[in-house]
């Protein structure tokens, strides 16, 4: 029950990996981004200015939220075709 509740409406990949959108305080430089990746095992898919599209193991989600320089983290939600 708990697992299905958590996964529904959230974009969750197998193995507890989450798609996330991240807003940063500023556009990231390479060194800072490398540190972030190492700290929370983040896989960055795309950089859009001061925002990241990434995947992360959900165990590291809270640590990501409290990382200096990370302003917001949104777990990706599903949308519907209109």
């Amino acid at each position, binding site marked *: 029950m708990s697992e299905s*509740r958590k996964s529904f409406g959230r974009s969750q990949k197998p193995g507890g990996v989450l*798609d996330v959108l991240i807003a940063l305080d500023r556009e990231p430089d390479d060194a800072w981004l490398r540190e972030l990746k190492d700290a929370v095992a983040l896989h960055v898919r795309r950089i859009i200015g001061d*925002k990241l599209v*990434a995947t992360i193991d959900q165990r590291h989600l809270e640590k990501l939220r409290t990382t200096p320089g990370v302003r917001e983290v949104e777990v990706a939600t599903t*949308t*519907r075709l209109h």
Partner: protein
Amino acid sequence: MKRRRQRAKTRFKPLADMPIRDRKSEAFRCLDARLARVALVSESAREIPPSGRRVAGTRGRGAASAGRRDLLAPAMQRPGQALEGLIAVPATLRDLPLTRLGLLALVSESSVRRLATCDRVSVLVEAEPSRADAVGHLLARPGIERVRAVSPGLFIARVPRGRLEGLAANAAVRFVEASVRLRSHCELAHVRSDLVAADGKRRVAETGKGVLIGIVDSGIDASHPAFWNARTPRIVHYRDQVTGDLYDQAAIAAGHAKRSPDTYGHGTHVAGIAAGNGAKTPNARGAGVAPGADLAIVKSSLSTADIADGVAEIFELAAQRKQPCVINLSLGGHAGGHDGSSILERAIDTLCEERGRAVVVSAGNEGMARIHASTVLDCGSPKPAHWTADIELKAQIIENTLVGFAWIEVWTANEDNLRVTLRSPNGELFTPPRKARDEQGRDQFAVEMTHQVAHYSGDQVTSFGIHTVPQAPWLSGWSIMVEEDRSAGKNGVEVGAVHAWIQDEQMGGFTNGFARSHLVGPPGTAAAAITVAAYATRREWPSREPQSATTTFPAIKLDEIAYFSSPGPTRTGHNKPDVAAPGQWIVSTLSSKASAETIPDNLRLPNAPYAALAGTSMAAPYVTGAVALLFERHPTMHWAEIKRRLVASTRKDHFSRPCWNDRWGNGKLSIERFLAIEP
């Protein structure tokens, strides 16, 4: 019923029975030889009551015109055009004895010419009640060809022109209607959006050449001929986010893209509206708005992260190809503040900062859904303000299990001190700790709850996830309660606006407190996005279904806003949607792999890979195509300038009423004016 009355009203006396002055009546007035509009005969000699029986009497010319008004589908009425100008038939037709033929449709010039010159006319013949056999015998006489009974009492036949009047005069015949070639739906929608003139010719020279149109959707049928120029695919990039596969133009030309089929059919249909070239339709009448544009497609999982990734990928491709680019997103959801502040929406804003880029989003199809509830709490009332909205969940299958599940977000202003509580059917109260998360489980249900302050807007959002067994009494009897908190040091209500959204109408709905507003969801509320509502331009089309040659929705009021089109504004009061475009119903490209579940036979056209669909998904690509035409002319235009043009060029009529309003936005898209205007 209505159709029957319309036909009855167009029954006329044979010429032989009419006074000379009526024979020479204003039956055929030629106002525009290119456009034949309806009604070949004057009604001036008689008046037909609803029963269909003719009564004597003469009406003047004005009365005839007024009487014609209710015979016409609204689709034939153009704003600002007098209805007196309805009959526009080449003079050669004036001599035809078509006195009882009704042409209640827009017909092309070629059809009218054919009628005027051919020896035989294809007609629909309706028998009087219980006279079908007599009409059948009548039509079996020598000289009448290809008789077929469509339904009891209704026949199709080819009749010599000289025998039409005699056929119409027969007592067993109720009505004779000439068969004419109708315009395809897509073309009719094009007429409404001022892309093509009534004669079918495009009003604008641009085709979108040199512009990249991006579609993030369910994929595309890359083999559809509408997306090819001879042997070269017009799709230059096809990414399948689900498998990770990428097909470039060469791979598509080699047929490899069939490994990523569009089994839903949605993306193929959307792409055809924006950019199909009309292949496999007569005279390419099924062409989309920008048939000269290049296409970049992302088959998406539809998660917000994948959408952001797909949009960025297409814009990067456009930059590499040095092309202006407009991306269509016929999708959306209801998670977030509905104020443009989600990270996906801000990413779209960021990506559109560069000139020559635009994103078009559909407003949504929740116009009748009860997924939004709202109130404005009183400030400074003697008693603490209080509001309750009740919720009923729907049982649904999640991961092969039947459950009740809903995710609800309650948004309140940062300035307000409010307690937001969920009450369960057994009366338990659940309030999340401030800026924290909690989870409570019971035998029959579980509740997940979170309180946080939104980083961007500073407003407060309280979320509840309800997970319950799918039986009474646990599906109904849930309530959201919002109470003013005047405890020590707190100011209570200062703003008072409260909005609650259930994430998806499949989860359930509010049974009280709901409001049919603020239903444009992310990413449609992004500031840079051009958000599109839908209105009706079509209610019937030829069908592939064996039992029915035509699919008809007679209740649809043409030119009126689609009932499903989601109304705005945003939670913060900004104007969304921006514009309305044709979206109910639209004929466009059909994926060869679309399943019968998503696109059944009654939506598929016979003998052509095209189908009719409805939704704001179909309206958005109209605007996407229009922006592509604009980019051909102004490749470095900024989205803000594009919106200024849209606002200044839209058409308002008695359907749209004064604009901006929350259903129509700034009014109906007029492509010709959109391209020509200099605001």
